[in-house]
């Protein structure tokens, strides 16, 4: 099939220098009936088992309720969606596992427990385990009989994950590794039967991972951490005191642990992005409902423009994040299929595919978590005083959202990573960035093209705007790299600016491509609200790109270079005026009429 060929030839990070055809991206409207049924199962589970017990979960004296919920989710098969059938799971593809994460994403603490268990707890074994390890542990985890946790962070080793001090020493008889050390912030720690533990063997520089069963002994814990949010999720300090781990429980290779950590986090990041989309949709629906019911000055507050603005923004940003998330998810699935065809085994293929899209995973993590933080913030605002009350749902939503910008790599780390990886790939010649950057350099010195040739077609002008946003990134990144060379990575403020530009460009492009593809299927008339959402998002994205670009340029350029680049930036962040107020009102009115999130 010709389509597959072009699909899989898309490489991670390549969106920056390549125009991608709408037909080559996946849109959530294409989820099959079966995938939707799976998502509905998750939503039904939250509605019947989790949402009626949110307080109980958050203020539980012990972990028994959370454990019983995970058991029930296990009985439904929700803990084994990503595990292949031969190990007791259901072997769903990557995008389906993202959809599952989204569908349980509004589950507050439960959602965190489930995703730590099925994600960082289970996946290291799935992707790096030997056949014996997989057959021994995966069926237990996929069924929920055992629960898992992931022990990477230490008191003195957080973002700098490879700096951990936990030690593993071979026993005298050569049969065991003896692990000693302290881990911190361990999700599911309080009830996990299995711990993926990262430690350094002897005086190694790099980490090695181990599969540690609770029953091995030598594991103690502090009491539950007292936290701002996700209070019902178990978070513990875990101590390993002469914990005896059989040598066959080493995972992957000696000093291969950091690689595991990095790659598992890639997956965790995009899964977090889909989970927060689920939460954003739920909070938006709740806020719309409240706005309809709450009357002030003799009318529903949803009739006020200021409230409509918020409702519309909540929609546009959530819709945008969702567009990019499943686009990236499908890219990963396609790359997996491609690698499988080249003879790679399935675990390897999945890992390589995710690694290939590490940039997009980092982008999605940052964007999704910041969208949810925006959504919950405005959610509280729409609820007014009730937003501040623990009797209404916004209080919990607001507190529970905040962690998403911290774990799975802080948003700073992920911003650094997204730009850093692009630069690294460009240096290695994997991403043909330099010629593109040079072409842009030439373009800004030439007489501007006044856009005489008006092209026809769906969203053609808007896609040109995105193309220009890419040029802005290339212009600034190219100049900054030339100026700083190896010292580029020390310019974190500039990298943060570039990351913001990169994120906005990827998300805006994905949103436009989704709407374009959808129009192709349903016709323009049926997609007017999606188009409104895309336009509202695009305008904001252009503004953010212009601001971040300006900050970036001013941070390193001077004199003529400064002036030329600022002019170039202005040209690359031009967008035709549009009455966004009306677009937002249309979005909000549709949501008000429906009484909830509309897409």
């Amino acid at each position, binding site marked *: 099939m010709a389509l597959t060929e072009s699909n899989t030839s898309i490489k991670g990070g390549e969106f920056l220098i390549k125009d991608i055809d709408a037909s080559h991206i996946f849109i959530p409207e294409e989820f099959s*009936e*079966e995938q939707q*049924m*799976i998502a509905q*199962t998750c939503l*039904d589970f939250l509605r019947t088992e989790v949402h009626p017990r949110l307080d109980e979960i958050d203020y539980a004296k012990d972990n028994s309720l959370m454990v019983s919920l995970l058991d029930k989710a296990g009985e*439904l098969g929700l803990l084994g969606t990503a595990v292949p059938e031969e190990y007791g799971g259901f072997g769903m593809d990557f995008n389906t596992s993202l959809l599952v994460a989204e569908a349980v994403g509004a589950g507050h603490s439960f959602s965190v427990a489930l995703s730590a268990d099925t994600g960082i707890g289970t996946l290291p074994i799935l992707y790096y385990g030997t056949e014996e390890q997989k057959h021994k542990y995966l069926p237990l985890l996929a069924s929920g009989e055992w629960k898992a946790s992931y022990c990477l962070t230490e008191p003195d080793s957080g973002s700098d994950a490879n700096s951990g001090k936990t030690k593993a020493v071979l026993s005298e008889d050569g049969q065991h590794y003896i692990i000693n050390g302290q881990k911190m912030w361990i999700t599911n720690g309080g009830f996990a039967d299995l711990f993926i533990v990262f430690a350094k063997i002897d005086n190694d520089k790099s980490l090695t991972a181990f599969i540690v069963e609770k029953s091995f002994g030598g594991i103690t814990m502090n009491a539950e951490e007292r936290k701002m949010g996700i209070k019902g999720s178990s978070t513990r300090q875990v101590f390993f005191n002469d914990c005896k781990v059989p040598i066959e429980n080493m995972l992957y290779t000696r000093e291969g642990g950091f690689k595991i950590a990095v790659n598992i986090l890639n997956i965790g990041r995009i899964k977090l992005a889909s989970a927060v989309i689920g939460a954003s949709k739920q909070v938006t629906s709740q806020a719309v409902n409240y706005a309809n019911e709450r009357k002030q000055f003799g009318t529903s507050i949803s009739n006020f423009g200021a409230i409509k603005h918020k409702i519309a923004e909540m929609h546009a940003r959530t819709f945008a994040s969702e567009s990019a998330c499943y686009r990236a998810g499908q890219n990963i699935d396609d790359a997996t299929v491609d690698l499988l065809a080249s003879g790679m085994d399935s675990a390897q293929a999945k890992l390589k595919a995710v690694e290939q899209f590490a940039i997009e995973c980092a982008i999605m993590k940052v964007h999704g978590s910041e969208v949810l933080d925006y959504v919950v913030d405005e959610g509280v605002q729409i609820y007014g005083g009730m937003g501040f009350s623990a009797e209404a749902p916004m209080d919990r939503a607001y507190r529970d959202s905040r962690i998403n910008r911290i774990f799975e790599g802080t948003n700073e780390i992920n911003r650094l990573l997204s730009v850093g990886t692009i630069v690294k790939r460009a240096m290695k010649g994997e991403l043909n960035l330099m010629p593109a950057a040079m072409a842009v350099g030439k373009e800004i010195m030439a007489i501007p093209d006044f856009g005489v040739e008006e092209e026809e077609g769906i969203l053609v002008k808007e896609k040109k705007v995105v193309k220009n946003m890419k040029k802005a990134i290339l212009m600034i990144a190219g100049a900054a790299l030339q100026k700083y060379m190896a010292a580029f990575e020390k310019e974190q403020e500039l990298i943060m600016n570039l990351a913001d530009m990169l994120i906005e460009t990827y998300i805006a492009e994905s949103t436009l491509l989704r709407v374009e593809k959808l129009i192709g299927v349903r016709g323009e008339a049926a997609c007017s609200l999606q188009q409104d959402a895309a336009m509202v998002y695009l305008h904001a994205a252009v503004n953010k790109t212009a601001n971040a670009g300006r900050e970036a340029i001013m941070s390193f350029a001077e004199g003529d270079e400064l002036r030329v680049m600022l002019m170039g930036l202005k040209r690359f962040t031009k967008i035709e005026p549009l009455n966004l107020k009306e677009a937002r009102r249309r979005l909000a009115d549709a949501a008000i009429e*429906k009484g909830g999130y509309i897409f």
Partner: protein
Amino acid sequence: MKILVCITNVPDTTAKIAFTDGDTQLNKAGITYITGPYDDYALSRAVELKEQLGGTITVLNVGLSDSDPVIRKCLAIGADDAIRINVEPTDSFFVAEQIAQVAKQENYDLILMGRESIDFNSGIVHGLVGELLGIPSISPVMKLEIEGTVAKMTREIEGGKEDIEAHLPLVLGCQEPIAEWKIAGMRGIMSARTKPIKVLEPTGQVTTTTELYTLPAPKGAVKMIAAEEAESLIDLLRNEAKVI
């Protein structure tokens, strides 16, 4: 135990109802369809009985192919196979006739369905099916146990409950808490892929046509009048509501 569960494919309980074609058709745009909530309980009880006693569960729906997703969900929840009578379910008698046609040939021990659908809510299909088959029908059944060939049931009656026993075969209209509501598990969803849906053409004639749908008038505001102000009540009834 051979069980037939009849299900409706109805708009989600939160759907906004509107009409098209000069108010003769439901406007289906943007509506999500679900299994009738009462039917869902009937199916859930059937699944529990099958777990307990063994046997087979067939789901039957009178409806067009847009019912298939809901039918497949029933298969995922635990039915073994499905029959769809390929016709728009226009009225209760016509639907009951279709069900009876199938049931006559299959000798089911139990025919379960919801006490009523949630679109037309006529709540008489179980009774009609019972009459057409010449077997007892009971509704609304809130509790159902099977002992040998006897069904022990509790049903809701005006102002209370009634315990009844009857011999199989039976037609029952069900409502909660007859069973624990079931969620389709992953295994069920995957196995639904291979379970058959048999499509049959209808028998008999459609005799009902719809002339007009209208929505009920929006609920008026409620006024509270304190007991000691009976005079103002009389005044309102006389001058505002103009009913006395």
